[in-house]
């Protein structure tokens, strides 16, 4: 066994680290001289928007740089050894032994051809820390600590036979198997539903505490980091903005940037008076093949307001969008828009009907064509619906770009030259170009960092006020709902569980499912997770 460091001793110290990445024929700075100290048994939260260098720094803490990156300056001292100068052979001895990594997408990180327990124990057995039998025995115990169902046998399954949340916990077990001194979590819960996220967070925290492991927790979700970390470090543009113990950081951030990060969750739309419906769904049923995915759904969307549809993945909320747009004709029921019945199939709708309902997608990356410039992307609906040509189109595109807080400098850019938030703004501009009355927003902020989310939500609110737009907002994030919605529809398994004004739905009493959903949303209080767990245990006990 390795010589375990005592709690409180310095385990890892990074001094003046600079990392450069090679892209487009040049070396660019990614990390510009960051210092970091991690004590044994301590959890450090790294937060920042995308491009801040947090993942690069997290990996560098293990002495690893991604292909195309290089460490130019600084030292990474792990337990007395400088990883920046250590040979690959030397680093391989540490990896998967004294330090381990938990990746964001567990589904993409497991080998689908091997059983889970084989993958969980592979590195311990390879490094000779444990015999095969004791490693298997230990893995089963870890599964138990991590609250996985049937810990004795779940290891015999293959990755596709367990859920995403379970897989993420198995990956944590894999990382813990050799009892490392250092764990690096890279956004481990970002891809999970809120209700699953709570369970995964709780088991990760308990295992880190139980084995007194030091960890670096990388995330852009402030509420999550508040539950996990002892110390929080904020990064931006590869520089450190601020570092402080969690409670101090949450209650009294010093830098303006940190404060702006903290204020994101305070956004809340005031309740509006209800107007006449612009869109109504009456008794909608829809099927994928033989499987019925929507059961008798009735939703009214008042003009000029925002209706949020909330639910976990698989609840049928995206299917509603497909029915409204005509991509999936309903098997029974009526979609009424502005007083007239919409033909179920897209092919039977008129150009004007198509123009008046626009859609914004979750993944801006796949929603805009990577080979078209911003001018072409936004200009096409103008030419297609409104018959604009040449100079008029360009002028209108610039107007639209300014409306979404970008400028004419973006006209000739390709999507790969835009950040995630900018891409989503381009998608919004494309929808606006058609001069619609009704916009369906399908999880438009869930792939974005929180500060960028706030920017997008504020933009949508402003546009609604200026242009009198009606939104149907599909999301699983309750704080987004608070920020933007007037009315809320809660869905589960293809049925509407509860619907009404936001103020009413968020007030108790709740149906069981709404209560579970609401209580699972992480709050900025560092005690939130502990309180929630003890409350749920009391109820269960």
């Amino acid at each position, binding site marked *: 066994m390795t010589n375990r460091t005592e709690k409180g001793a310095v385990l890892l110290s990074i001094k003046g680290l600079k990392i450069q990445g090679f*892209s*487009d*024929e*040049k070396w*660019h700075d990614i990390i510009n001289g960051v210092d970091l100290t991690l004590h044994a048994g301590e959890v450090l939260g790294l937060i920042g*928007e*995308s*491009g*801040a260098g947090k993942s690069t720094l997290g990996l560098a803490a293990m002495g690893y740089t991604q*292909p*195309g990156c290089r460490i130019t300056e600084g030292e990474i001292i792990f337990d007395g050894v400088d990883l920046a100068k250590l040979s690959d052979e030397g680093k391989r001895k540490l990896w998967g032994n004294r330090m381990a990594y938990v990746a964001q997408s567990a589904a993409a990180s497991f080998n689908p051809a091997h059983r889970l327990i084989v993958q969980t124990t592979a590195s311990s057995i390879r490094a000779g820390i444990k015999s095969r039998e004791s490693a298997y025995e230990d893995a089963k115990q870890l599964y138990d600590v991590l609250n996985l169902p049937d810990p004795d046998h779940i290891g015999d399954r293959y990755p596709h036979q367990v859920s995403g949340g379970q897989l993420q916990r198995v990956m944590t077990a894999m990382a813990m198997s050799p009892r490392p001194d250092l764990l690096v979590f890279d956004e481990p819960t970002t891809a999970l539903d809120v209700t699953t996220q709570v369970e995964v967070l709780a088991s990760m925290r308990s295992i880190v505490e139980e084995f007194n492991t030091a960890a670096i927790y990388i995330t852009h979700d402030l509420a999550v980091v508040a539950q996990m970390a002892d110390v929080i470090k904020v990064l931006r*543009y590869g520089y450190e*903005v601020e570092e402080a113990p969690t409670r101090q950081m949450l209650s009294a951030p010093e*830098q*303006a*940037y940190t404060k*702006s990060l903290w204020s994101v969750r305070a956004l809340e739309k005031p309740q509006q008076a209800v107007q006449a419906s612009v869109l109504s769904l009456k008794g909608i049923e829809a099927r994928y093949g033989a499987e019925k995915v929507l059961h008798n759904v009735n939703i009214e969307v008042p003009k000029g307001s925002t209706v949020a549809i909330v639910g976990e993945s698989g609840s049928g909320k995206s299917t509603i969008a497909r029915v409204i*747009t*005509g*991509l999936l004709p309903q098997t029974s029921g009526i979609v009424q828009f502005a007083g007239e019945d919409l033909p179920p199939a*897209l092919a039977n*709708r008129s*150009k004007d009907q*198509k123009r008046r309902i*626009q*859609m914004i*997608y979750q*993944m801006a990356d*796949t*929603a*805009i*064509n*990577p*080979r*078209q410039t911003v001018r072409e992307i936004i200009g*096409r*609906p103008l030419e*297609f*619906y409104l018959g604009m040509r040449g100079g008029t189109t360009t002028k209108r595109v610039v107007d639209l770009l300014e409306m*979404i*807080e*970008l*400028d004419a400098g973006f006209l*000739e850019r390709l999507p*790969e*030259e*835009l*950040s*995630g*938030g*900018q891409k989503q*703004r381009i998608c919004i501009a*494309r929808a606006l170009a*058609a001069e619609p009355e009704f916009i369906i927003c399908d999880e438009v902020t869930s792939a974005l960092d929180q*500060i*960028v989310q*706030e*920017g997008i939500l504020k*933009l949508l609110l402003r546009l609604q006020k200026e242009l009198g737009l009606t939104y149907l907002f599909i999301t699983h994030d309750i704080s987004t709902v608070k920020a933007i919605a007037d009315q809320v529809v809660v869905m589960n398994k293809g049925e509407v569980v509860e619907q009404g004004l936001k103020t009413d739905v968020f007030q108790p009493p709740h149906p069981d499912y709404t209560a579970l959903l609401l209580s699972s949303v992480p709050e900025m209080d560092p005690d939130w997770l502990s309180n929630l767990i003890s409350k749920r245990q009391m109820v269960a006990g």
Partner: protein
Amino acid sequence: MKIKTNIYSALGEVSSVYDRRSIWTRSLISLRKAPYTARFGMVIIFGYMLVAIFAPILAPYGEAQVFPKPYAPWSSDYIFGTDQIGRDIFSRMIYGARNTVGIAVATTILAFLIGGVLGLAAAINRSWLDQVLSRSVDVLMAIPSLIFALVLLSIFGSTVSNLIIIIAVLDSTRVYRLTRAVSLNVVVMDYVEAARLRGEGLGWIMRREILPNIMPPLIAEFGLRFCFVFLTIAALSFLGIGIQPPTADWGSMVRENASLIMFAQYDLKAGLTPLLPAAAIALLTVAINFVVDWFLHKTSGLRDDQ
């Protein structure tokens, strides 16, 4: 121009670092990084193109000019000697570049037009059209293409236009398969759905939304397909039903002078003569493959250190 303030703005978001360069400077950069094999390939292809374009200027004699000296040896008058009826082999090889390569290029382009358009349409439609096209392609592919081409050419006659159309149709089945397969990955993207929701027609979706995204594999396939077409034409000519005399063509030149190989024990140069057009075919094929390999590696997105 990164705005480094402490307040969030949409303009200041970090995106991937990128300098706008013209297509010209971009291609210069990638050319400079090209491996030696690819450079060699490009030089060879460029040389073939020059020869094909300037054939009448470069060739000392006419394509079908007959001299009263059949099977003349290599000499200063006839650099590679003359063939069985006394035509200058060197001149015919130069004209052959124009004929064989020209016909192969035309055939490949036609094959890509047919296969590409049908493949795209099938990928977007995904219903009855896809079924009809895919099954007909299966039928065509079930018959060995060289034998099928032989049969069709015997029925319709070996004119240049027949040759181009028949080989193009037979080869378009492979192009169809590839186009359909790579398009299917693009068709499921949200931007194609967005275009459909907008009400765009099939033509626009094919041309503007999908085609630009599947160009790299198609261009690579163009190079490989060209080689196959080229070899098929040469093979058909060798069998006597490809390009018809007196048009000079490398495939038929191999066949016509094949008997010379038996004289290698008396005159090595005479024995080499039928191999010259064969070597011209081989060199071009290898050169194109070098370039295609490099192009595939480049578009695969792998870095050099991976």
